[in-house]
């Protein structure tokens, strides 16, 4: 982008900001940064400019950059959920592309600010991640790069298994309070059900000076109920972790809690931003050439895919469908629900506030829409992938199911003292789709790394309950006897 183009872009942004506000979009102050491709791809790979170092991000960066260099794919922008909201624009984009991107980003920022799923995300994550990265760097200096890297390998492999629900987010606070009470000696009230927590002689040990260090001989507990937050359970209860290791895992958990709402609202969020870049760009004065360039860019973004769901495409279609149905309700809808015509805009703003992908798809991906978009289910038949289902309810339910828990298998910690030997027992909540066993067998050693004792994971293979166990040397699988 030339300096002249930068000036033009600035003027356009001012205009677009006004247009967006007049539409009722409500966003944080915006910080647009124009940067070269390798910077955009770095941020894309790390998820955040200030995140810590790890080779897997380097690998991701290399892959994305390679695709870009070969012209296979490109990302136009990167937007960060923060206040103020940072948006990184690609220097190599044309002026019109960057204008569209700015309009798109306003949609995202409005969504970040107003969608319920994002209610508890930290808006100062840029700074927090910088501080965490600094801390991890110091651990590298203190404990060695190899050890920190190994722990990050394990932590990143497990970091998706958290509980981002409101209760889950608060769980950490509750535990902290309990620990505080425990240190003060008020533990009887809190830990009556747990005989391991304290012995009658602890006060004698404490006379020696300092209380027993946290990292040696953690009391091994059973979760009171099956606990979804595997990371938290490990952080709080693993007998094998040192304090700095707990800190690093806590960092990973905190970062995942921050990213989680984005996993849960991918289709809504991209659809919403696409909906608004269309509306905003229509209000702009475009020359004929620009109009054509915009149309080409937009149709590239919403290009349907035979092998997957393009969130921009499906998302936009649903948003427009909701608006239409509330603008022009059928006679039936007026009679049944008392729906008045012309409430489309109001309705979509309500939906953007209340729903996440699962409820959005379940409530608004209608029969008509599925047929219009020609959505189907396919599966591997012999050597080929074939269409196996076009029935709208089954299509919808499968898409909804694929978005549950952000598309990540749900695990529960069942027991932290399995076999009365401090072993970790985790159960996969099987809902019809099997796990990738090769990955599973290779992830167990990571679990063992952070738990320090034998680990077990129960899942379903070919309709039978199977337990995978790893004892530090090899993985065993056995069927559960009925």
């Amino acid at each position, binding site marked *: 982008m030339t300096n002249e183009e*930068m000036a033009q872009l600035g003027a356009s942004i001012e205009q677009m900001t006004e247009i967006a506000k007049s539409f009722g979009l409500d966003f944080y102050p915006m910080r*647009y*940064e124009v940067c070269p491709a390798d910077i955009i791809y770095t941020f894309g790979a790390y998820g955040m400019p200030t995140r810590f170092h790890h080779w897997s991000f380097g690998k991701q960066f290399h892959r994305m950059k390679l695709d870009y260099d070969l012209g296979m794919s490109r990302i136009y922008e990167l937007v960060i959920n923060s206040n103020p909201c940072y948006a990184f624009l690609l220097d190599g984009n044309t002026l019109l592309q960057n204008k569209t991107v700015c309009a798109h980003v306003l949609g995202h920022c409005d969504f970040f600010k107003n969608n319920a799923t994002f209610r508890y995300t930290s808006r100062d994550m840029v700074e927090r991640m910088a501080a965490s990265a600094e801390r991890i760097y110091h651990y590298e200096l203190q404990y060695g790069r190899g050890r920190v890297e190994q722990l990050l390998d394990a932590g990143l492999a497990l970091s998706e298994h958290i509980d981002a629900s409101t209760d889950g987010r608060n769980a950490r606070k509750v535990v902290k309070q309990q620990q505080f009470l425990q240190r003060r000696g008020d533990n009887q009230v809190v830990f009556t059900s747990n005989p391991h927590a304290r012995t009658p002689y602890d006060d004698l040990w404490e006379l020696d000076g300092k209380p027993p260090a946290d990292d040696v001989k953690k009391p091994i507990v059973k979760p009171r109920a099956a606990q979804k937050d595997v990371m938290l359970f490990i952080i709080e209860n693993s007998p094998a972790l040192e304090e700095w290791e707990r800190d690093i895992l806590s960092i990973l958990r905190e970062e995942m809690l921050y990213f989680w709402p984005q996993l849960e609202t991918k289709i809504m969020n991209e659809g919403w931003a696409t909906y608004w870049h269309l509306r905003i760009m229509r209000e702009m004065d475009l020359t004929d050439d620009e109009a054509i360039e915009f149309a080409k860019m937009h149709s590239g973004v919403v290009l349907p895919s035979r092998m997957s*769901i393009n969130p921009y495409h499906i998302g936009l279609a649903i948003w427009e469908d909701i608006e239409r149905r509330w603008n022009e309700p059928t006679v039936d809808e007026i009679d049944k629900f008392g729906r008045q015509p012309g409430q489309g805009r109001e309705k979509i703003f309500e939906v953007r506030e209340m729903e996440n992908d699962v409820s959005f798809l379940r409530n608004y991906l209608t029969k008509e829409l599925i047929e219009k978009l*020609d*959505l189907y289910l396919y599966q591997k038949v012999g050597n*080929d992938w074939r269409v*196996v*289902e076009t029935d709208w309810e089954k299509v919808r339910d499968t898409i909804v199911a694929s978005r549950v828990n952000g598309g990540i298998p749900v695990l529960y910690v069942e027991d932290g003292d399995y076999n009365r030997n401090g072993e970790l027992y985790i159960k996969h909540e099987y809902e019809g789709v099997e796990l990738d066993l090769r990955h599973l067998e290779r992830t167990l050693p990571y679990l063992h790394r952070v738990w320090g004792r034998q680990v077990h994971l129960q899942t379903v293979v070919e309709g039978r309950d199977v337990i995978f166990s790893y004892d530090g040397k090899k993985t065993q699988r056995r069927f559960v006897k009925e």
Partner: protein
Amino acid sequence: MIEFTLEREDWSLHRKGQQDQERHREKVREAIRENLADLVSDESLIMSDGKQIVKVPIRSLEEYRIRYNFQKGRHAGTGSGNTQVGDVVARGRPDQDGAPGPGQGEGAGEQPGVDYTEAEVTLDEIQAVLFRELELPDLADKEAADMTVETVDFRDVRKKGLSTNIDKKRTLLQAIRRAGRPHEKRVSITPEDLRYKTWEDITKPDSNAVILAMMDLSGSMGLFEKYCARTFFFWMTRFLRTKYANVQIRYIAHHTEAHEVDEEHFFNKGESGGTICSSAYEYALTMIRNEYPPERYNIYPIHFSDGDNLTSDNEKCVKLVTELCAMSRMFGYAEVNQYSRASTLMSAYGKFELPQFRKYVIREKSEVYGALRHFFSQSSGGVRSA
């Protein structure tokens, strides 16, 4: 509150992605080291012209997660209208289903369910790892050296030089020293402070060496046997050319008779007929007598065979090998013996206790690497038994 800002900063010092990419490459290299035995016998490497980038299967770089099995689930897709049940969305890719690719032969499909992440590495990268462990054993200084090893040594500091070679410590010291003078307010680096490291070329005389590569090309040497032998010599040749400036390699092919061949013939042509190994040894001895006096050369004869020698010839072989050993720094005998049958030649050589004699049995492709390490290492501790 400012509603928006639009900025373009200088990002040229931001190298985070590149740094971690480098760490990933290091890990690839580690993985290469672990898989060296497999890689050494990888056909795609041997067939390559040595320049191209090859895809090498690496097992350890995937990021493992608990995730769903994509192959088993149902997935949603978007059609272009009128999609019917039974329509094909995508054809299965042969490489995903373990169907053998061209030239894979018996190697394919050995390990069902294991697929590899492919990492791109250059032949140079593999060589760098492989050759670090190899060297010519017991190399002795011989007269009339014409081998040289050139290295550079940074041992001088000057005021002019290449900016990549700035000696930061000395430059800073200089700046601080100057800042100590009166009238200087703060430490700043001026052009006079700059100090550059600079180097000198070092030329060391090294020893002469010649490798006599002998290969059995008789009818009994099947595809597998020839493949192993050629893989070995391929790496040996590259290793010697990379690490030693002026080592000579002579190629001798034999069946019942031996003759010298050029490199191209040695690596590509097949022959047939019976096997009389002593012919090659005789040829080598003649060559040594005529061209490579042992007092001037380090001599390394290496012989590859399937061990299926004419029984009546064995006695002669033992005699000739003893003679060769006396003249050589190391004599290597490698036998490609896929089915571990009792070979006539190995049983004849089994009794040798000469320090120069080294033998190795290759039963499968991946043992080529072991043979390389066995032959090209300093006086090895134990000799691998047949």
